């Protein structure tokens, strides 16, 4: 059976949802250490704060301060259970919807408050339904 290399194949890998839309990166992998049993791969964490924690707590703190100054909502962290992983290849496909992930909160905010106000901007949904 193919063994998954967690640090090389999963950590930092691009995540795509069930519709193959990009939904962030695997910023952290959580392991559950159990007595007398092999450690279980419990979940993937996606979201800026999870990555910032990896770099250092100071970066997480700096991110919070900058968001407060810019009045940008806190970037959430999404915990995706590992049993939702459907495929591990060049990307990691997970059985979730990108729009429902906390980690996409900042991106949603940017899309609604900034990108959509740019003249000529059209969203993916507009393209799908053919809004001019």
């Amino acid at each position, binding site marked *: 059976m193919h*063994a998954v290399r*967690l640090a090389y194949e999963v950590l930092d890998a691009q995540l795509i949802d069930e519709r193959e839309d990009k939904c962030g990166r695997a910023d952290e992998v*959580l392991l559950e250490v159990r007595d007398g049993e092999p*450690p279980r791969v419990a979940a993937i964490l996606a979201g800026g704060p999870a990555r910032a924690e990896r770099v250092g707590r100071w970066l997480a703190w700096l991110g919070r301060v900058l968001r407060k100054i810019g009045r940008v909502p806190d970037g959430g962290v999404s915990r995706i259970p590992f049993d939702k992983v459907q495929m591990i290849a060049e990307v990691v496909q997970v059985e979730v919807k990108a729009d429902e992930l906390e980690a996409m909160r900042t991106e949603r905010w940017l899309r609604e408050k900034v990108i959509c106000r740019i003249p000529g901007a059209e969203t993916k949904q507009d393209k799908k339904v053919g809004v001019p």
Partner: protein
Amino acid sequence: MSATELRLSDLTGRVVRDVDGRKVGRIEELFAELEQHEDGNDYVVTEFHVGSFGALETVGGGELLRHLLARVGRLVGYKTYRVPWDAMDLSDPKRPTLTVRREELEEDQDREREQAEQARAEAKRQHEQQKQANDQEPQRR
């Protein structure tokens, strides 16, 4: 049964010592395999790779780079240990410790390497026999 959660990035790069307190290397990679049971399937960690290059194995994940590292490693005396999950004590994640001595790991790996070489030699011998048989077949006709 108690269970604690650990971050992968907290483990990779940690120095691993054996039961005698001697440094073995740093955790470079964790291998996980699918475990099937009644409640569903889980990925569980089966093996830890511990080596002296630290994160270099992760960085050099591509096949070409891995082979290159293996060659360079042979020149500079780099050694990597494949540690089964039950030989790694993670009760203190900041100080992962082996439950065996370093020599035992080396012996196991030497034994596995010998077995792999024997299997490779046997496969090569069978392949050559098959090739000879195939070459002789048209001559008979």
